[in-house]
C-alpha cells in the first residue's frame, strides 16, 4: 500500500481567503492527480501533474508537484463558496498495473 497523507483533514474559511492543501507520501508516483467531490457524487478530476517540480494553474487554483514526485500541494486564491467540497489527491503507479492510490481527503467549507 502506498500511503498518501493529506492535510489538513478539515478546513473552514471565509470567502476571499487563501488556503493550501498538502498531499505527502514516501512513495514516488508516475503522476499525481487532484479531484474534487461534492456530496452524493463521484470525484471529478481537476488536474494531473506528471513532471517533478511542475506547476499548473486552473483559474484560482494552483497545483504543484514536488521535485521528487512524492508530494503535491493545491493552493486556492480568494476562495469562493463554490469551492466548497472534498478535495482528494491520488498517486498513479503506472508501473504496477495502473493502480491509483488516494489520500484521505480534505473537506473544505468556504463561508460566504
Amino acid at each position, binding site marked *: 500500500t502506498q500511503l498518501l497523507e493529506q492535510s489538513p483533514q478539515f478546513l473552514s474559511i471565509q470567502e476571499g481567503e487563501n488556503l493550501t492543501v498538502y498531499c505527502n507520501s514516501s512513495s514516488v508516483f508516475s503522476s499525481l492527480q487532484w479531484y474534487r467531490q461534492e456530496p452524493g457524487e463521484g470525484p471529478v*478530476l481537476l488536474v494531473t501533474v506528471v513532471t517533478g517540480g511542475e506547476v499548473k494553474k486552473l483559474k484560482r487554483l494552483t497545483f504543484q508537484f514536488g521535485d521528487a514526485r512524492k508530494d503535491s500541494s493545491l493552493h486556492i486564491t480568494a476562495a469562493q463558496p463554490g469551492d466548497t467540497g472534498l478535495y482528494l489527491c491520488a498517486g498513479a503507479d503506472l508501473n504496477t*498495473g495502473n*493502480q491509483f492510490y*488516494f489520500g484521505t481527503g480534505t473537506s473544505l467549507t468556504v463561508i460566504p
Partner: protein
Amino acid sequence: DAGITQSPRHKVTETGTPVTLRCHQTENHRYMYWYRQDPGHGLRLIHYSYGVKDTDKGEVSDGYSVSRSKTEDFLLTLESATSSQTSVYFCAIATATGELFFGEGSRLTVL
C-alpha cells in the same frame, strides 16, 4: 462524462445476504476499478480489471469478488454481506492517458 453508470444507486440489505453491484461503461476503456469510500479513509481500492476476465485484488479485497465477462461491465459481489461493508461504492475507469473517471456511486447499507 465518461459514460459510466452504476446500479443500484441505493441498496439496503441484511447481514449474510449476497449483493451484486454493477458498473457499466460505454467507451470500451480497458481499466476498470471498484473503490469504497468511508469517512476518514478516503477511497480504497477493492479490485480492478485490466481486460475481459483479467482482474486483480486491491488493498481491501477480503469479502469481495469481481467479474468482467464483457468489456463494458464490471461486477462487484459481496458473497455474504456484513455490517462492515456498509459504505459508498464507486466504480471508475482509467483513460489511456491515466486519468480516472468515476460513476455516481452506490450506497450500500447492511443491517
